């Protein structure tokens, strides 16, 4: 800002306001105004409000005319001392408009690039959040039963340095389409492989949580060439036990209170499960077809209340690096399922942490993963 020139910009009357229309100037150029004096009426989609002058001084220009619609922050007028030349004001306006346009473009571009998008992958419409870039082997994140890509909200951006990190909603979950085929781990592993092909990724690190861990193991079994490493967080497939009170409770809960109660199984610190979190989960659970999809997955993967897949042999035969993270107080899949694995599997058992270490102990998990796959990058 030039010291003698004060820009008057489109105000933001409320959180939802993105633009406003000049309904009518109340002060003509050449008028001295005081702070708080009514300057211009501005109309939004919700209200018409009078904008009061934020400063005292001489109004020199109406940059925006009556009836003009402009975004929040756009230049609408100029205050300046009488001594300031018109040419200086013209130059100021030109600079401001150029800077504002550039800032708006950058902001829109950044927002567009860092949002999940819908992708048609084979027969499935998948919500995919593709972040980061660089030379490192890309990392793919696979969430668990009933989850979505937001399960990685404390890890995704943190790990996207020097590599692409791709999170997506499995079919039947989050914003993805609700056809889950037979609902098996093999089905989800196949969809994951289709997504990798769609993104033209030949080989990736894979991190999977819970059911997503079982999917990662199945992918390593069926398409080993695509898997550069496995990071397994409380993965399915390493033992028969599973807390069906959580699985059935989650499927059946359709109210905030019920969802909140079952989500508490996921964490050691129950205070972490707030009403807003439960409401966020319900937004996806309430989509038509979501409950039926979850029920089908549960029937396919946990028949008779036990895990149907035994994936320990995959670990025994795996020739990729594997690291395992498990919360000591996991109430969904018992931490004892981390016992008796091949010595090549690096284990990280986190005390006083439940079934979702990536949320409850995000920094520790990020450090483990960074060290694990970061080492692979350094030696590649």
């Amino acid at each position, binding site marked *: 800002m030039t010291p003698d020139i004060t820009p008057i910009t489109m105000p933001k009357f409320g959180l939802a306001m993105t633009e406003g229309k000049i309904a009518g100037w109340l002060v003509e150029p050449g008028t001295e105004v005081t702070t708080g004096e009514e300057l211009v009426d501005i109309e939004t989609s*919700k209200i018409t409000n009078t904008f009061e002058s934020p400063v005292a001084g001489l109004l020199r220009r109406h940059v925006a005319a009556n009836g003009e619609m402009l975004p929040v922050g756009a230049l609408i007028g100029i205050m300046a001392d009488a001594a300031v030349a018109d040419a200086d004001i013209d130059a100021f306006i030109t600079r401001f408009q150029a800077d504002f346009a550039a800032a708006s473009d950058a902001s829109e571009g950044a927002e567009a690039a860092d949002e999940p998008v819908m992708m048609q992958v084979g027969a499935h419409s998948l919500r995919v959040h593709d972040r980061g870039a660089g030379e490192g082997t890309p990392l793919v994140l696979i969430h668990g039963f009933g989850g979505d890509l937001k399960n990685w909200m404390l890890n995704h951006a943190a790990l996207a340095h020097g590599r692409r990190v791709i999170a997506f909603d499995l079919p039947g979950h989050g914003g993805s389409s609700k056809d889950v085929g037979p609902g098996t781990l093999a089905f989800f592993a196949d969809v994951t492989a289709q997504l990798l092909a769609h993104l033209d990724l030949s080989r990736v690190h894979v991190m999977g949580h819970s059911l997503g861990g079982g999917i990662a193991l199945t992918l390593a079994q069926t398409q080993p060439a695509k898997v550069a490493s496995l990071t397994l967080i409380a993965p399915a497939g390493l033992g028969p036990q599973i807390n069906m009170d959580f699985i059935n409770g989650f499927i059946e809960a359709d109210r905030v209170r019920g969802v909140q109660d079952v989500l508490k199984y996921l964490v050691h610190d129950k205070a972490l499960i707030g009403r807003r979190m439960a409401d966020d989960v319900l937004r996806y659970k309430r989509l038509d077809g979501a409950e039926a999809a979850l029920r089908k997955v549960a029937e396919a993967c946990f028949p008779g209340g036990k895990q149907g897949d035994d994936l320990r042999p995959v670990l025994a035969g795996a020739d990729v690096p594997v690291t395992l993270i498990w919360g000591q107080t996991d109430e969904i899949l018992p931490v004892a399922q981390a016992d008796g694995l091949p010595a090549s599997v690096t284990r990280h058992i986190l005390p006083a942490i439940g079934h979702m270490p990536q949320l409850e102990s995000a920094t520790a998990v990020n450090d483990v993963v960074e060290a694990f796959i970061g080492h692979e990058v350094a030696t590649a």
Partner: protein
Amino acid sequence: MSKKSFRQAINEALRQEMRRDPTVILMGEDVAGGRGGSANTQDAWGGVLGVTKGLYEEFGETRVLDTPITEASYIGAAAGAAVTGLRPVAELMFVDFVGCCLDQIMNQAAKFRYMFGGKARTPLVIRAMYGAGFNAAAQHSQALYPLFTHIPGLKVVIPSSPYEAKGLLISAIRDDDPVIFLENKVMYDVEEEVPDESYAIPFGEANLTREGDDVTIVAFGRMVGMANEAADRLAKKGIGCTVIDPRTTSPLDSETILECVADTGRLVIVDESSPRCNMATDIAALVAEEAFDTLRAPIRRVVPPHTPVPFATVLETLYLPSVEKIEAAVTATMNYRVTEKV
């Protein structure tokens, strides 16, 4: 998911439910638009504010029916159609016109389930615009949800955003009881992210749009946005507000209101309907009866004066609750101190 306006969200809910269930029909004045007027203008309007636009074109004249301007006849016909197997969505246009057909709603549709021993289902939705702020004058600006809430047998829905409108309207259409669905006419252009898929938000469960420790604000419909804005301003002053959007006034999620008041000890209710016997008085009575000992300050109501809605812009603005009035009420309740009487 994409951004949709309140108008688009309602249109999408109607379209998806009509595709899903062939028994869903629309009835009302100009819902097909232009029928009875000039040639080739069918579907030109799609309702007085364009909410049903495109539905006549897709579903045709047997499922999107323009009616004469006789509320008593078509609301009555819709109630009859509901008990005989259809799922009518009748558009009343301005809710103020309910005076012409209140008997069909209050004495007929609302009571069928009770008067026929539970054997009659009345899956009827009555959509109507409500609220001031549109300079539509006293006969087109009322917020009559307390009137419907008073009548046993009716479910009363007041969506506060496009997301809420779509999910609640889908629930209303799938419900087997008569539902009054009230849309604030000032909100039709408000936009937010709304899933493309169908989803149903259950009745009787309030939504907490803000969480804070100091004051509970209960607000309805358009007032929820104002309460959120006031809560955001107050947060900058160090005052934490929980904002409750009950979504439905009947059934009312009393449990959540009482729990939040127990947590904060202070209650402000924002209601744009006339102040006597409205939702604010109802909730104030509920809290006074069930949670009096948790209150740390008197309950405050942000409500209009007990007058018809003025036509003049300045007076209409004065009439309505506002962000500033909510902020002032919260500040007053925070500043309340008990003074001991001698």
